[in-house]
């Protein structure tokens, strides 16, 4: 069981680090630049750019947008892997051997995702803030001290907790929805493709709906 969890940590988690890092860097940069572009009034201090970048990253971008991206990457991978095992009778082979196929295939994926998604989200937060800083430095809009002051202003540690709670919930949803579509696929390779697409669409919708519910429950 734990050997499979470790293997899934590598497949689901470690292999997603690069894409999460890359997207976070660029998205952080875009958030910072867009915020700086909107701040035309002298009534708002310059450090607002850092503050808004931090808030956008911690509250929505890292936990929610990254989970949507991971729903595409991880969800399609899981649905197609399990779906292929179903149509090529590998799941039947497990059942015949007396192995509980759902436990064997799905549980390690759920545990691995719930353990590693928070790590991915923390990486995403850090890289997004770095991306914002890099973009502002390259464009020469705001200096480092002001940006860092903005990031530290009104910082609420609960926002980190809030993001990590969302990450764990979304990890569970992505893996269970995708596994469901893969496990119950019938037919051939065409149906595996359809199941994979359906898994991504449904995961994304479920993430957005549960994001609304979690935001209402945790922030208000």
């Amino acid at each position, binding site marked *: 069981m734990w050997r499979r969890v470790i293997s899934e940590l590598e497949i689901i988690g470690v292999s997603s680090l690069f894409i999460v890092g890359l997207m976070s860097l660029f998205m952080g940069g875009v958030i910072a630049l867009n915020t700086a572009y909107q701040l035309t009034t002298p009534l708002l201090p310059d450090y607002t750019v850092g503050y808004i970048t931090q808030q956008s990253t911690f509250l929505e971008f890292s936990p929610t947008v990254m989970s949507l991206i991971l729903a595409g990457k991880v969800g399609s991978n899981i649905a197609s892997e399990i779906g292929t095992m179903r149509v*090529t009778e590998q799941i039947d*082979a497990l059942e*015949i051997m*007396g192995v509980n196929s759902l436990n064997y295939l799905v549980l390690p994926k759920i545990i691995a995702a719930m353990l590693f998604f928070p790590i991915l989200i923390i990486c995403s937060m850090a890289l997004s803030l770095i991306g914002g800083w890099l973009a502002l430095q390259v464009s020469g809009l705001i200096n480092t001290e002001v940006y860092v002051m903005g990031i530290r202003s009104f910082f609420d540690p609960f926002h980190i907790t809030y993001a990590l709670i969302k990450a764990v919930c979304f990890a569970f949803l992505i893996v269970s929805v995708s596994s469901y579509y893969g496990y119950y696929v019938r037919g051939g390779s065409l149906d595996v493709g359809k199941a994979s697409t359906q898994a991504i669409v449904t995961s994304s919708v479920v993430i957005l709906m549960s994001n609304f519910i979690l935001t209402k429950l945790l922030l208000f």
Partner: protein
Amino acid sequence: MIEVQNIDKSFADLQILHDISTVFEKGKVNLIIGQSGQGKSVLAKCMVGLHEVDTGHVIYDGKDFTSMNRNERSLIRQQIGMLFQGSALFDSMNVEENVGFPLTMFTNKSSAEIKKRVDFCLERVNLTGKNKLLPSECSGGMQKRIGIARAISMNPKYLFCDEPNSGLDPKTAILIDGLIQDITKEYNMTTVVITHDMNSVIEIGENVIFIYEGKKWWQGDKKSIITTENPEITDFVYASEFMKEIRQNIRNTRT
């Protein structure tokens, strides 16, 4: 010995199996034959519990499999080896891991003991030294033999083979048939083979059950299937015009 008693099975409104009762004998290769779509695979899947029967019983050496719960079934299934039509080898594992998988899951054997058993099983199917190959690197015939090695790794009492010769050339098919027959005798297993390959019937058919329209139409051995006058069976056995002509010539010669 496996007994099947009065099995009915439907999917939605379509009844596939109608009141099938038979006995699959120990130490023999029992064949379920019939045309495609007649219910052979459904019967086999009902027997191993991949499909639930609507009515009837499947009895493994006196134990009613159909009335068992999941845990009890799991114990029986550990005594079942199954070779699937497409081999159903795990893509992500190499040959050694595939064959040793049931041992890893259900025994407390050390990795050295598992390796020894895997080597023995691979030797038994003439695949010595192929341990590190991935299933995608193996030919169809090799995949079938790896499937057999995996099926016998736990020393099963019952062996199910779903169309073991599909997609194989006649020579390799005969090799696989011979292997199934040898293993059955060697380990005194109850072997059930689902096939529509007449070569297999002639090679290894000690107890042959012919399924037609979801019913047990006929039961006998490989000799009697050749001589029977049952029209559905003769249509199946002598399917081509060429074979029908040969049969007619033999009959004419005899008369």
